[in-house]
């Protein structure tokens, strides 16, 4: 009888129920216990380079294609970078329209994640059959009526987004100093009516979370336990009162005890944030410059920081709207403090933000300037350099452009939210793998529990891999007229070799 050798590596390929491409590699020792696990990002596109030579005003639409799930975030960060590039202040009306649009966008994006992507791990259960762990399984579990309500209410948010910004996937809205389209009384009425519905759905989602997740002891243990926990630094945007603000403000960094270690203006981001490169993945790892990169580890000595809903709650003192603030207080009580290290807490914090966004839409449309025709400030100055920061659904998003005097982009740097979470995701994937995989055995349920470690971050791996590295194996085809074609291969270590190919002729 032959004994099968203990597997030394388990791959989860691809990871699922998220945005973007990713792969998890889990390495085991001789006893089949997990030693290390890594999250790898295998795709990349090169936005930071190919936007060079494009007219600056085209960038909000081009960079929205970094991500089709959060295109509004890319679009808005880009638009704000253009404000800075052209040194132009958007009009009051433009800012209102942008904020209403943006809050609607984060509202529906967060809802997508809770109900369709991350939530099924709880509603349906991590051990449910693979075929059921998705939005359709969610509908089966909570009932068709609830399922419809969620789908329809979210869809109506997207319809309203289309009214404001032309389209939901890849909006057309932002211009330096303004927006492209004016609002009307009819649109405002629709938004008023919708905001009520949105607040109700947000409250319903919080209640569903409580009933279907928090009140289940087995799940609550996961939230409060050590497997899905990370004590990193935290980063997020806050307004002048220190409240969480998704659209504008300064960026705050706090430590593991919630003490402020940085509060910076967008223009100064490069003094605070640096990026580390590893050869085994295309994504770069942002970290706090003054602490330094210490690897895939947390704690005060490591420059790793996290972003996104629970991080935003950690860095801010309060929510900017009443119902969300109340919901936040319940959350803080449940976790026993204002600095929450539970990684799964993102699922809950996300819903508090959903409520906040809905309330913000309700507030903002009442502003007297919302319907004004003054949607663009045309006093643009000679463009040079600009940084725009917003809080994307998944965290702090930074766009930094330089241009020539005519407004053609000469360079771009983009620090995208999910990049900052990749290190923590990798860390938590490892802790989950160690907790659940033993003796070399890993069934579908156990592997899904490993995936739950990244899913709570609602990662946007298309965002994370916008860039393009090099020294990759390159095949160069040389065609010379009248001669045989030559194919050269430059392999990863830089050596060139020739591939024999049949002649292509003239």
């Amino acid at each position, binding site marked *: 009888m032959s004994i099968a050798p203990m597997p030394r590596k388990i791959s989860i390929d691809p990871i699922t129920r998220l945005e973007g491409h990713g792969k998890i590699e889990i390495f085991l020792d001789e006893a089949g216990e997990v030693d290390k696990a890594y999250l790898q990002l295998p795709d990349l596109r090169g936005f930071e380079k190919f936007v060079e*030579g494009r007219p600056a005003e085209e960038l909000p639409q081009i960079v929205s294609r970094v991500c089709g799930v959060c295109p509004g975030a890319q679009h808005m960060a880009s638009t704000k970078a253009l404000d800075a590039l052209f040194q132009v202040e958007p009009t009051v009306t433009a800012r209102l329209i942008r904020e209403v649009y943006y809050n609607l966008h984060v509202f529906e994006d967060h809802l997508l994640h809770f109900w369709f992507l991350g939530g099924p791990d709880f509603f349906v259960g991590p051990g449910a059959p693979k075929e059921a762990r998705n939005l359709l399984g969610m509908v089966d579990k909570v009932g068709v009526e609830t399922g419809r309500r969620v789908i329809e209410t979210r869809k109506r948010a997207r319809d309203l987004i289309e009214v404001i910004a032309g389209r939901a996937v890849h909006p057309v809205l932002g211009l330096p100093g303004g927006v492209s389209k004016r609002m009307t009384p009819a649109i405002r009425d629709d938004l008023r009516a919708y905001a009520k519905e949105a607040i109700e759905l947000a409250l319903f989602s919080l209640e569903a979370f409580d009933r279907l997740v928090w009140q289940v002891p087995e799940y609550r243990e996961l939230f409060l336990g050590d497997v899905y926990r990370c004590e990193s630094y935290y980063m997020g945007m806050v307004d002048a009162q220190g409240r969480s603000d998704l659209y504008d403000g300064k960026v705050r960094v706090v430590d593991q005890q919630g003490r402020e270690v940085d509060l910076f203006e967008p223009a100064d981001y490069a003094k605070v944030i640096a990026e580390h490169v590893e050869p085994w993945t295309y994504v770069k790892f942002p970290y706090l410059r003054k602490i330094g990169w210490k690897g895939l580890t947390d704690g005060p000595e490591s420059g790793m920081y996290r972003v996104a809903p629970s991080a935003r709650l950690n860095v801010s003192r309060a929510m900017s709207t009443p119902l969300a603030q109340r919901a936040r207080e319940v959350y803080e009580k449940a976790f026993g403090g204002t600095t929450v290290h539970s990684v799964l807490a993102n699922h809950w914090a996300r819903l508090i933000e959903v409520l906040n966004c809905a309330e913000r839409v309700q507030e903002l449309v009442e502003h007297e300037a919302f319907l004004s025709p003054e949607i663009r400030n045309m006093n643009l100055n000679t463009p040079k350099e600009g940084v725009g920061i917003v809080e994307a659904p998944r965290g702090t998003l930074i766009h930094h452009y330089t241009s020539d005097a005519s407004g053609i982009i000469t360079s771009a740097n983009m620090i995208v939210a999910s990049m900052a979470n990749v290190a923590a995701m990798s860390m938590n994937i490892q802790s989950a793998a160690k907790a659940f995989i033993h003796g070399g055995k890993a069934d579908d349920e156990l592997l899904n529990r490993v995936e739950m470690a990244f899913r709570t971050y609602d990662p946007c791996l298309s965002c994370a891999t916008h860039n393009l590295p090099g020294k990759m194996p390159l095949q160069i*085809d040389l065609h*010379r*007229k009248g001669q045989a074609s030559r194919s050269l291969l430059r392999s990863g270590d830089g050596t060139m070799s020739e591939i024999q190919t049949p002649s292509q002729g003239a």
Partner: protein
Amino acid sequence: MSVFEPDIVAFVCNWCSYGGADSAGGLKLAYPANVRLVRVMCSGRIDPEHVATAFREGADGVMVMGCHPGDCHYRNGNHKALRRFRLFERMLVQMGIEAERFALEWVAAGEGKKFQEVTTAMTERVRLLGPLAIHGNVSPKEVTHG
């Protein structure tokens, strides 16, 4: 070692520039055999798609020739050619194809000498550039010429 012989395609309008080619012939002014003529009624008839296709199909250089502005047989066909191809030239450079590989010229029916001059100059310019190889990645480098 053989000398590179570029393939040049020249779109010429029936009334002026083809007449110019004819004049050149009549005056026994030789022009390079590298240049193959495609005769159309007017330079305004030539679509940038034709020029792009010529490059794609193996031309190392392409010319478009028409009547002098103001003299177009159809009044303003050559104005359209001027607008289209000045824009085309700007785009060509962005796509990694050297500007010298394309030329828009005005040649009248009686200008046999000019016809000879521009076609010869074009041939020599392109000869120096070498063969054109169109790749997916249109950035100017990464391509070595013979």
